[in-house]
Every structure is written in structure tokens, then in C-alpha cells.
């Protein structure tokens, strides 16, 4: 079987297998490193055949595609091991989005983090905490409040409860511990066609309340920045979360 399957590498690279045969060969590829390498090499050849046919696309096609993109939702990234990056030595975890069935679970997380009482809190700190609790309660109470979270394989992640009508989101990090040195974790709003906008700095695991979110907000990102935060992200996000499942981006 292996030898027979191996001889299908060229027809496969040319897309010259029938549906069922293609599926069988793809299954074979998963366990045959040599075949996978050969297919990769042959595919670079077929790409040359492809590129040589380049023709300007009709202008009307551009309009149709770009306007469709504005109203088309994207699929979340598939679960997959870390992707090696050519430019940098570190890896960015690909996250699996796990929409919560209800707001309650995320709300519990937010509240637990909020009421993690620290010793020697001053009156000011307590006041701040109370104000924050009130703001959070308002987001949770919104009729359109929805929750989502993303977690990586090590259980580190971010939970969000958001309300489009109030333009607010409560964002909680968990499992990351303190950032190294005097560095801070900064929350960013990512919007199509615009620079990331800072939504504030995280203070440990205390929830951060992001306000002024337009309904076009597409995703949130968290980066590690020098103390005091940055005007724009200077590192790769440690975590990113699409806001589509909580009603934004449309």
C-alpha cells in the first residue's frame, strides 16, 4: 500500500486524484513523512505552473469581494501546536475560542477575581474596588451581555463579558502570573483599518473594564509592555480574543 500510495504524490500535487482517492492519500500523508516532503516539493513546482497564468482580475470582482468581506464572519483558528516564527524566537499560542453557554460562568470568574481581597487595602483602594464592582455589575446586567473566553493548552486565558449596547467589556486574565520585571500587561482594542487602541493596563488578576467600544470592534489583544504601558503594542500579543461571539464586529 505504502509504495502504491507513494506513487500518487505527483497526481496529488497536480490535483489529479478523484475525491475518494484524494481523501485516502491525505490520510496516508499524515503517517508518511517522506510522501509529505515529496508533495511539498512537487507543490512548489505546480505553484510555478499556477503563477505563470496570472491575469489581472476584473475590477468588479474586487468590489464584490471586498464588500462581501465586510459582512462575512471568520472561522476561529483550528487547534494546533505552536507555529514556529521565522522572525522571532518566541511563539504565539494559537487559541481555541470557547463560547460560554451563559454569562454566569464568566461572571463567576470575574467576581471571584474582583473579590480576591488583599491584605492592607486602603480606603481608596476599597472605594476603587467598589466603583469597579458597580461598573462590572452594569455590564453584567445589560440585556445583551454575553461572555466568551479563550484558553491555551496550559489553561492560561482571557475571559470577557461584553455588552454592545453599553460599548463595554469586562476582561479578566487568568493563569499568567506577574509579568517579569517592571513590565505590565496592556489590553488593546484591534479594529479593521485602524491602529490598536490601548484599553488600559492590567493590575494582576483584577478585571479590567474596557469602555467606549464601538460595535465594529473586532478583537482584543494583550501584550507585555514596559512599565507604564506603551502608545502602541511593542510585542506580539500573548493572547487574542475575537469579539464576534459577544456581538461585536458587525
Amino acid at each position, binding site marked *: 500500500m505504502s509504495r502504491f500510495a507513494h*506513487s500518487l504524490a505527483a497526481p496529488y500535487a497536480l490535483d489529479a486524484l478523484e475525491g475518494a482517492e484524494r481523501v485516502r492519500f491525505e490520510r496516508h500523508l499524515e503517517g508518511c513523512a517522506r510522501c509529505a516532503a515529496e508533495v511539498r516539493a512537487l507543490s512548489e*513546482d505546480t505553484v510555478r505552473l499556477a503563477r505563470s497564468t496570472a491575469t489581472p*482580475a476584473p475590477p468588479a470582482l474586487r468590489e464584490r469581494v471586498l464588500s462581501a468581506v465586510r459582512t462575512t464572519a471568520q472561522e476561529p483558528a483550528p487547534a494546533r501546536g505552536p507555529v514556529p516564527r521565522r522572525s522571532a524566537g518566541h511563539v504565539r499560542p494559537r487559541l481555541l475560542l470557547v463560547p460560554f453557554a451563559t454569562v454566569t460562568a464568566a461572571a463567576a470568574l470575574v467576581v471571584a477575581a474582583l473579590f480576591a481581597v488583599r491584605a492592607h487595602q486602603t480606603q481608596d483602594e476599597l472605594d476603587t474596588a467598589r466603583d469597579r464592582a458597580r461598573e462590572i455589575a452594569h455590564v453584567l446586567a445589560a440585556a445583551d451581555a454575553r461572555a466568551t473566553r479563550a484558553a491555551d493548552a496550559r489553561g492560561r486565558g482571557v475571559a470577557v463579558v461584553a455588552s454592545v449596547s453599553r460599548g463595554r467589556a469586562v476582561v479578566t486574565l487568568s493563569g499568567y502570573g506577574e509579568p517579569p520585571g517592571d513590565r505590565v500587561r496592556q489590553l488593546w482594542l484591534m479594529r479593521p483599518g485602524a491602529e490598536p487602541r490601548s484599553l488600559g493596563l492590567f493590575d494582576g488578576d483584577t478585571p479590567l473594564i474596557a469602555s467606549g467600544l464601538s460595535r465594529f470592534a473586532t478583537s482584543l489583544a494583550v501584550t507585555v509592555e514596559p512599565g507604564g504601558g506603551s502608545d502602541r503594542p511593542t510585542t506580539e500579543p500573548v493572547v487574542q480574543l475575537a469579539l464576534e461571539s459577544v456581538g461585536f464586529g458587525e
Partner: protein
Amino acid sequence: MEADELLELVAGGDQKAFEELYGLVSGPVFGLVRRVVRDPAQSEEVAQEVLLELWRSAARFDPRRGSALSWILTVAHRRAVDRVRSARAAGERERREARRAHQPAFDQVSEEVEAGLEREWVRRCLDRLTALQRQSVTLAYYDGYTYREVAERLRLPLGTVKTRMRDGLGRLRDCLGGAA
């Protein structure tokens, strides 16, 4: 920016990056789809599906498996081939081909406009293959025939066609060599 970087931004929902990516890949995608599908209206339809799929499934791109352009053109080719095969199964293609016999062939027109270096180089290299190697490769890749259909059309045993395909692509690679 290159397609690889843009695709990563697109996966994060960046529409500006998508516009830039469109500028880079729409020509190769449309040209390839049109070469395989041939019918202008259907080619536009398939190219639109492919380009929109890029937006939707950008997160599926795995840089460990090759370059972004290679992935994009692989997706485009597969969609084009699927369309041609289902049209062929429905007998539409034969009827369209009969109609087109009375129109100027698309390939002649486009080749006058697009005498790109890459096109010229690939054509020369294809000319260096043996006739059976060239036909095996182009009937499959540009006309969307399965290797079984290629074997029938060329009246060759299946094993021979597979070998011609592999040798044809190998010789093509040697000829194209460092010409980027």
C-alpha cells in the same frame, strides 16, 4: 508586506491587510482559475469564492506546510478543478466548448496582454519536456483531468501516467531552477 505576513493579519480580522493581500494574490488566483475553468462568468464566480474563503479561513493557514501563496493557489486550483469536473459531469463543458469554437479563444487574447516573464519561462520549460510528460502534466493541471482520465485520453497505462507526471514536474523544476 508579503503574503505570509498579510495572511496572519487577515486571520486576526484586519480588513486593510486583506485589501493588500487581494492586490497581491487576485491576479494569480484569477489567472489560474480562468485557465482551468475557462468560462469567464464561472471563472469570476469561482475566483470570488476562493478569495472570500481566504478571508474566512485565513486562520487555517499553516506556515509549516509552505508559503502563503502556495497555499492560496492550491486552494484556488482545487476549487477550479472541482468546478470543471462537476461541469464536465453535467455535460455542460462540451456544449460550452462547442459555443466557444465561434469566439476568439481566451488564451490567445490573454497571452497577448500578459506576456509576463514567468509565463514565458514556464512555457519554455514545458517545451523541454517530452510530449507525454507535458501532456500528462498540463491535461491534469490546466484542464482538470484526473490521472485516470489522462491515461484514457493518452491511451497509456495508469502507472506510466503517474511516472510521466512525476518526471515531468521534476524536469520542470530543473529547468525553472533559480529563476524566481
